[in-house]
């Protein structure tokens, strides 16, 4: 379980890093998205991973906390997702503005000299 998640995070983050180093702003945007997925998964994993555990039932006395993962990172990741989503949307708007004003999708706002 941990290995699968770790590899997934690594692949996502690595692809993201490669993409943000590309010259087109759409590639940069995609890279930022992939990196934020990776980071969100990473925060989520910080509360440990648990499988094959019974669901949380409140009727039979106090449930054993050892059966469950730490809920705080899950709360944090929700906030992180919302903020990341909003700021990435803002970048998208900026990208479209840049495209409209400069007529190119290059991150510098102009095509490199040949």
């Amino acid at each position, binding site marked *: 379980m941990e290995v699968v998640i770790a590899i997934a995070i690594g692949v996502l983050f690595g692809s993201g890093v490669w993409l*943000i180093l590309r010259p087109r702003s759409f590639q940069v945007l995609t890279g930022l998205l992939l990196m934020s997925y990776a980071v969100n998964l990473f925060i989520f994993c910080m509360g440990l991973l648990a499988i094959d555990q019974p669901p949380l039932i409140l009727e039979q006395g106090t449930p054993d906390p050892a059966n469950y993962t730490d809920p705080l990172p899950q709360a944090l990741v929700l906030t992180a997702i919302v903020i*990341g989503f909003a700021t990435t949307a803002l970048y998208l708007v900026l990208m479209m503005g840049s495209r409209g004003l400069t007529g190119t999708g290059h991150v510098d706002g102009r095509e490199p000299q040949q």
Partner: protein
Amino acid sequence: MSWSQQLILVPVLLPLLCGAILVLINESRHHLKFALNFGSVLLLLATAIVLMWQTDTGRWPDGIGVYLAANWSAPFGIALVVDRLAALMLLLTAVLATCALLYSLKRWGRIGVHFHSLFQFMLMGLNGAFLTHDLFNLFVFFEVMLAASYGLLLHGYNVNRIRAGMQFVAINLVASLLFLIGVALIYANTGTLNMADVAARVAEMDAADLGLLQVGMVSLVIVFLVKSAMWPFGFWLPTTYSAASPPVAAMFVLMTKVGIYTTLRVWLLVFSDEAGDSAGFGLELLFWGGIVTIIFGGIGMIASEVHGQLAGYAAIVSSGTLLAAIGYGLDPLVPALLFYLVSSTLAVAAFMLLIELIDRSRNPIHAMLELTREAFEFEEAPDQPVGVGIPAAVAFLGLSFACIALIIAGLPPLSGFIAKFSMFHSILEGSGAGFGVEGTTFIAVVLLAGLATIIGLITYGIRTFWGGGMVPARLNVTEVIPIGVLLLACVLLTVYASPVLSYLERTGADLQQPGLYIEGVLSAPVVESKGGHQ
């Protein structure tokens, strides 16, 4: 909970409410919008002064005021904490905001929509970052500040601002992701996000368990260093600052200082002398990074042809000096570096505002001729001046420019000199036998950077004021007053240097005793409920 503790929340809540109300008001009623915004900023100024008075007069134990959000006791809920350092930063923010806002009245507030709301939200983020005591909450306030700053940078949409914005936003988005990684690692290793609690637990950790935690702390601090533009994270700064409209650029000067503030706070708290195995971790890297930043900024000052960038490089030099001074890791140096922080922030912000007024007064053709004359070394006799008195506007611009140059370069008699002098003094005095390569390098590099600064500024001044072509433009009172106020603040800093430095010494003493701070936060009492209901 007394009224004074409720006051800690005001610097966050007031801009939030005011900004929200301002969104609803139609853009055409800009006088009303300005009045509301200005009223809110003045209230923030008053709050900051009261908070400073509260922390410094011993009305709170050890000068630490704690506000426990939703009445959760300290390590569990989010605590807002004000101490002398936070109060100082709040006051600096409020003073700068008042000046920048007044400057925007005539022109800049109207060139786009929602300037005033964004301004308030940015203040909320800044104040929140100074007050919060929870690492994840710090992330949230950083994002509030950044989201507003993206909007403000693009305010008055043109190609330059879009270009600068694309880089600025992308860099800060990546930095935010690093921030999250850092926070997650710290939580995974210590099980807490409360700064005081993290510091308390780090002190008890074994050296073997520290590795991952230090990785987390470093990735967190990299974010702060991106904000404070340490080399090699600072290449975005000159472009961004020269593209932004002047009042926004003046506020951005403060954003670099947020990076410095958080570095100082987190580093001195978590890796203090009391932190056991990780005491003083990474200070050397901070020091040498700061030195390289000063050199980079100094070269930039001499090389820059665009005026906005000159001010940007001045901000980089100031950041570098502060980082190197933090990295030097000497207790008596802290008050001096805080003095430098206040003085250089005020001066660079005034410079940002002044550059636009100077540009407006320049005859563009003459300005161009000046540049080409230097480039091609034309031997052309300048026109003999005919006996005309200096117009008041030009005199004001020239005098303010001279003051700013003196402060930024650190020449006597203004506050920049006192700041640098007291830094050198505490290094020479305090190091004793430990005064070695680092002390020599620091003093030499800071002095050389002062030389580079004065060369860069004199070149600019000669081209502008003596190169001819100053067309006395009409200056508005609302644009002159802010610059005057900022410079007056620097003069007051010089005249009242002794009481200011003694306040800063108490601030520094607080920072040297993280134990007291940790205990003050963690033992803050919750409000007992009256009656039976919880």
